[in-house]
């Protein structure tokens, strides 16, 4: 009897109350910018949302789904940035017959070569699209390679040691980039060819829309990847490594795959970041921005929940931007008690982490425990089975 009652539960909603409330809050906050006459800020928010959604989703794949304490997210991001800063531009320089060796990374030559490349890209929409795809491809390949390389020594370590090793890798890459002049200019930032130049005056808006589109595509990809037997394997390893191994999983192999995919995606995020800003300086890739902020976004949104991550990134990016825009209007009084509003956004991240751990440890949109296939589908298979059973003669 109870079985009948159980199967007749109400159908799961496509989108829950919680998600709707969050969306409403986000829309309200965004419209606040419009009403206060700062529509342009929204473009900046969408840009930051897109980049960090990509990076945080990749972090969520490794940490939320696989249980790898990825404290070195910046390593993959910076690899993507270096790859995009160093390689596609050099290829273009080679094609048009400009110096492409060590000189390319020298600011004196670079500031002359890149505008020439930009002119060529802006002359034909297919050049622009091709160059953008080439950048994404380069970033993904190098990101995947670095993910694999990092995973070799690190994957066999246990939680805390693995976390520290990954953290160290992150800083290591930044300092290599900062000091190896002939790659991306070392301490002098160099320019990166701009595939969005073709849009002329609307360049920034077009770039933001493209980035947003790529972020959504990556979200859909990861959603499908994690709602599959592969995603189930990741969760098995996260929940219990020994048990997953006894269930026939090669733990090292599956964790490596997760690291490779996650790093490739994070590298694409880093690559898009330098394409958008049009220049690359290694020192700009700090672990604060590209490791710890994604962690805060992920923790607020919900570890192990892709949609939650999107919400978390959006909400925090808006709040951060609000503080940056309005800090001297709203928080100027804080100077009186010895706090410079200059640093409020950093305080915000720390406060968010503490508050999330205290009050919503599973995040705003927690991970749901649900079958890999939609429930209706499972029920249909079960019903079929039931039918076969009843059609047999009853003894």
């Amino acid at each position: 009897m109870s079985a009948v009652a159980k199967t007749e539960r109400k159908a799961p909603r496509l989108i829950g109350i919680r998600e709707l409330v969050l969306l409403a809050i986000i829309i309200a906050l965004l419209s606040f910018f419009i009403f206060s006459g700062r529509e342009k800020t929204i473009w900046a928010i969408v840009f930051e949302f897109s980049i960090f959604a990509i990076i945080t989703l990749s972090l969520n794949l490794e940490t939320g789904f696989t249980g790898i304490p990825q404290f070195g997210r910046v390593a993959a991001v910076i690899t993507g940035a270096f790859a995009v800063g160093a390689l596609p531009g050099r290829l273009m320089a080679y094609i048009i017959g400009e110096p492409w060796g060590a000189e390319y990374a020298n600011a004196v030559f670079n500031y002359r070569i890149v505008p020439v490349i930009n002119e060529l890209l802006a002359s034909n929409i297919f050049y622009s699209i091709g160059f953008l795809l080439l950048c994404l491809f380069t970033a993904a390949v190098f990101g995947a390679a670095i993910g694999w390389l990092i995973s070799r020594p690190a994957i066999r370590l246990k939680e805390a040691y693995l976390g520290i090793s990954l953290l160290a890798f992150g800083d290591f890459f930044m300092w290599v980039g900062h000091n190896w002049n002939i790659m991306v200019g070392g301490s002098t930032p160099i320019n990166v060819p701009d595939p969005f130049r073709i849009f002329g005056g609307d360049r920034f808006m077009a770039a933001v829309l493209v980035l947003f589109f790529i972020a959504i595509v990556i979200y859909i990809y990861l959603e499908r990847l994690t709602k599959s037997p592969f995603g189930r394997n990741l969760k098995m390893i996260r929940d219990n490594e020994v048990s997953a191994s006894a269930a026939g999983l090669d733990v090292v192999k599956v964790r490596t795959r997760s690291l490779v995919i996650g790093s490739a995606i994070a590298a694409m995020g880093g690559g898009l970041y330098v394409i958008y800003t049009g220049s690359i300086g290694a020192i700009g890739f700090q672990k604060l921005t590209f490791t710890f902020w994604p962690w805060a976004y992920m923790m607020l949104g919900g570890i192990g929940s892709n949609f939650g991550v999107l919400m978390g990134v959006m909400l925090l990016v808006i709040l951060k931007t609000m503080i940056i825009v309005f800090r001297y209007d709203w928080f100027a009084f804080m100077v009186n008690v010895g706090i410079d509003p200059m640093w409020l956004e950093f305080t915000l991240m720390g406060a968010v982490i503490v508050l999330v751990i205290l009050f919503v440890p599973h995040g705003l949109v927690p991970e749901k425990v649900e079958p890999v296939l939609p429930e209706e589908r499972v029920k249909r298979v079960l019903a079929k089975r039931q039918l076969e059973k009843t059609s047999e003669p009853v003894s």
Partner: protein
Amino acid sequence: MSELLIAKNVTKAFEGLVAVNKANIVVKENTFTMLIGPNGSGKTTLINCCTGILKPTAGNVYFNGTDITGWKPHQIYGVGFVRSFQIPLPFVGLTVLDNVLGAMRNPGEMPFKATSKRAWIEEEEKNMERAMEILAKVGLSERWDMPSSSLGAAQLKLLEVAKGLSSGAKMIALDEPIGGVDPASAHEILSHVAELKKEGLTFFVVEHRIDIAAPFADYVYAMDLGTIISEGTPDKVLNDPKVIEVYLGKGVGSTCSE
């Protein structure tokens, strides 16, 4: 009946402590073989050595004629030998059904195929039907869609058995399947196991509640301080003075037999 699992002179030492000392065990096909012994006698360590969780210091383990000494757990799984754990280790973020499905293989486990549902849906549905059959066998079919974290102690033990079964293994090692479970549920679990034995499976069961488990056993090994001290049919082993001695203390056995 062929010999499915053979452990030859298996020794496992942790630094100076010899937990298992030259243990010889043979598990014949389609039997319910039991390994008994008091706490700390090395039963779980022996199972761990056989299933690849630990590497034996010396000795060899053969399964179905293959030398599996020192293999990784997932490789041993591949030849049809799986195990359950003394403390149930469910995948808490998954439903009961997915816990069982997780032990089955599917092309969708490859990242490149995972994103296109068409590549794995058929296999998944086939697996799902089998998983539901298995859940029905262990009496969990009504709870298929619940988070595994919501199950009780006895149900978690049954889920461990179901996970073992789902792999399609020839032999399942159960580490204390009724440990910490009330007698009624314990009997239920073992009845399920006995049913499954009829279907041709082999069970190697570590247990120290011999009173409940003995009626189900075909062959019993008794262990103490890392060595096998007695083996044979349940009656023979349970009346062996050496076994009575390790369970009840010196002198009791001799008074009983007089």
